[in-house]
């Protein structure tokens, strides 16, 4: 399908496709096994200038575009969903600064992030605050020119490897959701340490760690927006980043589909290529149709975000929900086409199933996405 991409978007696709094929695919299995952070690939992406895709030109980036980010994330995910998320999670950690940072904060943090010299992370989730972000317990107490952070964040993507963190903490517990604030916290700040690194089912090239704050002194100048804006920062950030997660899902599904078509052509049973069997053909046809539908939804949503259309929450949720469900189904079907070989680690397809699963869970579970969609539907009808 032709998505009528601009020349710049076509270049992003061409370049990220090359990076995926030449630099990511050959090392995908290695990092899946070792669970090490793929710095060698991050360096390549940085040199190609693709960390600049979500940062304005005056701070060292390109003209920021969510569709551009989606295209790059999709291409990387075709080769490895884990390495792709290291990249996309840096975008997630950068968006709050781009959206709410002062000029001074932007000048201080964005150039290094645009150059890929540093990666970023966004820290909202806590052991008891997953889908219910209002249950956040991490506190930030103002003392003179500092905020003192105490608490624990967990399941933080890029945790430990990122240099720049945006952390959501409660400045006023009595106000509930309106008592949360967002802070930029640098790695190495006294009182900021890392807990255990999670061993994961999929996206194993990415790092997921606990962040521990023990009387961590953060300069008051690192507060993003104002006190009490923490949830607005979070929601606006997710509006920008959700199409990226959906694009990751599309990329994983596309990668699995391509492997399945290739395998079906090469695998002979009963004296014929299994791609000549209608049972296989229909599976492939359904998979391809679903991937294309998901992509169309994701690109449309990304374009809406880039056009700064208000209230993209429902569309963003639809894109993330549909693309991740498609990724799960398509990867499972792709493995089925590989048969017994597909179940073995020697073949690349089982990794796609593992990598796909997280896209139904993170940045809002698909159940939460359905809540968002349904509430908006009902609200629209009540108008």
């Amino acid at each position, binding site marked *: 399908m032709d998505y009528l991409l601009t020349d710049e978007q076509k*270049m*992003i696709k061409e*370049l990220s496709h090359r990076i995926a094929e030449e630099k990511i695919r050959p090392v995908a299995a290695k990092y899946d096994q070792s669970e090490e952070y793929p710095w060698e690939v991050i360096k390549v992406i940085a040199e*190609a*200038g*693709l960390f*600049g*895709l979500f940062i304005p030109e005056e701070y060292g980036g*390109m003209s920021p575009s969510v569709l551009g980010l989606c295209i790059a994330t999709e291409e990387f995910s075709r080769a490895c969903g884990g390495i792709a998320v290291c990249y996309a999670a840096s975008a997630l950690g950068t968006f709050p600064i781009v959206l709410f940072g002062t000029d001074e904060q932007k000048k201080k943090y964005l150039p290094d992030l645009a150059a890929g010299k540093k990666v970023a992370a966004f820290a909202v989730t806590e052991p008891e605050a997953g889908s219910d972000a209002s249950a956040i317990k991490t506190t930030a107490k103002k003392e003179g020119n500092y905020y003192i952070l105490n608490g624990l964040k967990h399941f933080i993507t890029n945790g430990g490897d990122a240099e720049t963190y945006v952390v959501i903490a409660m400045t006023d517990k009595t106000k509930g959701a309106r008592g949360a604030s967002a802070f930029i916290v640098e790695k190495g700040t006294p009182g900021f340490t890392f807990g255990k690194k999670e061993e994961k089912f999929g996206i194993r090239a990415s790092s997921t760690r606990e962040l521990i704050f023990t009387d961590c002194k953060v300069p008051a100048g690192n507060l993003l927006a104002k006190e009490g804006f923490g949830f607005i920062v979070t929601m606006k950030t997710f509006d920008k980043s959700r199409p990226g997660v959906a694009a990751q899902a599309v990329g994983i599904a596309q990668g699995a589909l391509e492997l399945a078509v290739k395998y079906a052509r090469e695998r002979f049973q009963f004296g014929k290529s299994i791609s000549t069997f209608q049972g296989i053909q229909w599976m492939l046809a359904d998979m391809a149709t679903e991937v294309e539908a998901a992509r169309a939804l994701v690109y449309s949503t990304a374009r809406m975000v880039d056009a700064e259309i208000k209230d993209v929450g429902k569309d963003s949720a639809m894109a993330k929900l549909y693309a991740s469900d498609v990724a799960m189904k398509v990867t499972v079907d792709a493995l089925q086409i590989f048969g017994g070989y597909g179940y073995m680690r020697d073949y690349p397809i089982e990794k796609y199933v593992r990598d796909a699963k997280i896209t139904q869970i993170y940045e809002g579970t698909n159940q939460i996405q359905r809540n968002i969609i349904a509430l908006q539907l009902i609200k629209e009808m009540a108008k």
Partner: protein
Amino acid sequence: MNIIVCIKQVPETTEVRINPETNTLIREGVKSIINPFDMYAIEEGVRLKEKFGGKVTVVTMGPAQADQALREAISLGADDAVLVCDRAFAGSDTWATSYTLAGAIKRIGSFDLIICGKQASDGDTAQVGPGISTHLDIPQVTYVKKVEEVKEAKMRLERMMEEGFEIIEMPLPGLITVVKEINEPRLPSLKGMMRSKNAKITVWSQKDLDLDPQSIGLCGSPTQVVKIFTPPQRTGGQMLIGDTSQVAERLVELLKNEVA
């Protein structure tokens, strides 16, 4: 440091087909790429520029479509590009090609270093680089695998030999040809790709260059291609299996009989 990198656009295939009547390459239907060895030349040029400042000008002689190769070089970090293009240059052998490129380089003006790939993947002659240095009367070092040092208008270079390497000091301006061991070419950057799309490529024809008409194109090419053929494939060897003394005995026997 002003650097000139000479590149060639070649067909992307290791199975080059030859027109048996004209003894020339069949280019139709084959995608064109930058000669792989020239990618190392571009990368080395860009690295030296990044280290010492200056600029990289990339030059090629070829048909109008070679513009694409020059744009790719710009996406990889080259600053300027010159396409030497004229029907009068058609049929040039390595002598006429290096004479013509030398003419273009004279027109570019001052430079410190010329870098070429060690050879082109289609012709495999490795003669154009040395030819250019001869026509320009500057020193040359071929098969460079490392630039050790650049100091006071001199370069210290490691030259790859079949066994080991030589260390050579070359005064500048000079010319080097590079082997693939010298670096790992980078991928283009997004900014580079965007710059290359709008970059202005300078195109020079015969009239733009001060060249002897008798020394260019087919008539300026002393090379005569008499015959082109595919060498016969090597037939398989013979495997001797057994313990060492048995194998040695059998080998001696074979050598005696075969030599006889």
